[in-house]
């Protein structure tokens, strides 16, 4: 969430209209959506409850959760209009996320 808030704060209004930010998490997302709407961030929170999509993307941190459950590896992916990957970053330390400026640079380079 903190990462998303950072990214949203740096996106100009124009870019918010032009880019879809899709946040995928196994966590319950009603609360996240409320927070994002409160901050006027145009995000869509998608529920990947059983980690199907994280698994499809090869982004599973096996038994990495607090109760030993599988969790997604934190990752950010920039796709162009045709759905082609143009930039991505996958975390090796769950505290560390890409700098929002790097994500924005990748978005602006599309």
């Amino acid at each position, binding site marked *: 969430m903190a990462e998303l808030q950072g990214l949203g704060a740096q996106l100009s209004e124009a870019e918010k209209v032009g880019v879809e930010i899709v946040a995928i998490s196994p966590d319950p*997302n009603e609360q996240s959506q409320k927070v994002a709407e409160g901050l006027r961030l145009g995000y869509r929170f998608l529920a990947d409850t059983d980690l199907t999509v994280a698994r499809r*993307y090869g982004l599973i941190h096996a038994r990495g959760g607090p109760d030993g459950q599988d969790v997604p590896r934190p990752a950010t992916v920039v796709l162009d209009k045709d759905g082609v*990957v143009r930039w991505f970053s996958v975390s090796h330390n769950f505290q560390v996320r890409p700098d929002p400026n790097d994500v924005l640079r990748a978005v602006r380079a599309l």
Partner: protein
Amino acid sequence: MAGRQSPWHNQRVESSTRLAILSPLVALGAIAAYVLFFRVAVVRNHPEGYVVAFAVATGLAVLAVTRTRGRRWPAWIALGFSGLLLIGGAWFNFVAAQVPDTATALHVGERAPDFTLPDASGRPVTLADYRGKKPVVIVFYRGYW
């Protein structure tokens, strides 16, 4: 301890007590700074910073212990406090927070795997529906980080 009464020694006791107080303050300050500036990318992306601060705090406490001539317990308490934070912080950052490498399905220049997932109101969202319309940023996240 013949010189315990001399002004020189009193000053030494005082400076070691000051170090013993400074040590936990440095450690607590590092925690406060990390939490407060968590949304600043530079702070969040350098978690080893708090480990360094805990190491400095532990160093100050060691100095306090070695310089103490009078009451030793403040210095020892500082050393215990900062030392435990150093061990705990180093373990958290360098062991617990590590995410092992995986073979991802992400390749620059290739189409990302398609998916359909429900949004917060239960409506299905399909990635391929954006094709030809909008660039998409996908963020996989978990918990607060």
